[in-house]
């Protein structure tokens, strides 16, 4: 059942120390700034964050990192032009980093949401990121065995919701939101507005409400990250 809550603070209430938090977004597009800020205010610490990037500038995810609440980050592309907060933490060994190819990050999250125990993936075969991982040759091609990434909480940003938690996204801000929504025990979505059931075309729903536990309206302007190489 989806709860529509009144504030971002209410939306992240109960996230505990040591939680694995899936954070949507590709750069700043789809990054749930208000929910991350609320998580920072909540003060939960020793967090593992799973997100494509490791923060941009000094806002949102970068601010959560700067507050020292994140012990470990799992992402595909931490290094960006404006990832100075992460860079400093990493170089001073105050944060652990696991780098995962972007498609594997997405597929491992999907596997978690879809009840798949593990899968054989061709990405990364023969590279340092597959070192130590089990491999298998299937029909003449080599694959690496990859395991699901489950979250305790997912914080995502969508465009609009109805009160049943059905979500639609906006353009490329969709990115990791729909898969993260399926992969966590508690999924929290910030949206620009919440409307009544029937206001979203059933054919166009991207995330059905079953995946969404809490929704909060946070009308917030999107912001641009600085360009970063290679995603």
């Amino acid at each position: 059942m989806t709860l529509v809550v009144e504030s971002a603070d209410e939306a992240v209430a109960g996230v505990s120390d040591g939680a694995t938090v899936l954070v949507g977004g590709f750069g700043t597009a789809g990054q749930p700034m208000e929910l991350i800020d609320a998580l920072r205010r909540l003060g939960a610490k020793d967090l593992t964050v799973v997100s494509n990037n490791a923060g941009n500038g000094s806002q949102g995810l970068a601010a959560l990192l700067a507050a020292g609440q994140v012990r470990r980050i799992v992402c595909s592309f931490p290094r960006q032009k404006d990832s100075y907060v992460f860079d400093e933490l990493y170089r001073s060994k105050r944060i652990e980093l696991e780098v995962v190819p972007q498609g594997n990050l997405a597929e491992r999250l999907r596997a978690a949401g879809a009840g798949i125990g593990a899968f054989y993936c061709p990405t990364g075969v023969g590279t340092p990121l597959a070192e130590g991982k089990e491999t298998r040759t299937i029909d003449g091609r080599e694959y690496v065995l990859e395991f699901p990434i489950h979250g305790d909480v997912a914080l995502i940003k969508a465009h609009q919701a109805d009160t049943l938690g059905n979500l639609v996204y906006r353009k490329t801000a969709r990115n990791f939101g729909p898969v993260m929504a399926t992969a966590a025990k508690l999924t929290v979505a910030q949206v620009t507005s919440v409307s009544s059931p029937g206001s979203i075309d059933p054919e166009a729903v991207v995330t059905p409400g079953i995946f969404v536990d809490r929704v909060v309206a946070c009308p917030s302007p999107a912001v641009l990250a600085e360009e970063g190489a290679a995603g």
Partner: protein
Amino acid sequence: MSRLDRAGIARRVAADIPPGSYVNLGIGQPTLVADYLAPDSGVILHTENGMLGMGRAAVGDEVDPDLINAGKVPVTEPPGASYFHHADSFAMMRGGHLDVCVLGAFQVSFAGDLANWHTGEPDAIPAVGGAMDLAIGAKSVYVMMTLFTDAGAPKLVPSCTYPLTGLRCVSRVYTDYGVFLIEPDGVTIRETYGIEEPDLRGKLGL
């Protein structure tokens, strides 16, 4: 024909992309290729952050923070575009549905191994993004790069010394000095620019 500049390499790649292809242009130099695709080529661009039918770079009022490419540059939405989430986007790539992917590289081996994500410097922060997925995802992977480093070392090499992005995945290498085809029986030089083929072979140890 003299040695190609970046635009010349991009033009050469663009000319080799069949009309109607689905193409992913990697970040950096490869994005230049879009400028040389014929307007009626029907080439459809994929960006791995979740869009097919991506338009050109956005200008002025077109800029929308929610509509960006994999390099986080604002782009436009032409008619016929579509959006999808990251798992679907990388499934599209991994499943071999893209015809061509164009990537930059630090090194390519004679066997088509690609190194383009990490310099191997011990203090570098590792960051792979979609590089490994792109390397193995398309039916053909074209690399575009200068053939030599600033220090003069070849980047098309018997064996990569940089950390690998993918094994035996590159099918063609477009460079300022020539175009190379990576084939099962070795490297073929298809054309050269500003250098004779024997000289080029000598410099590369081919």
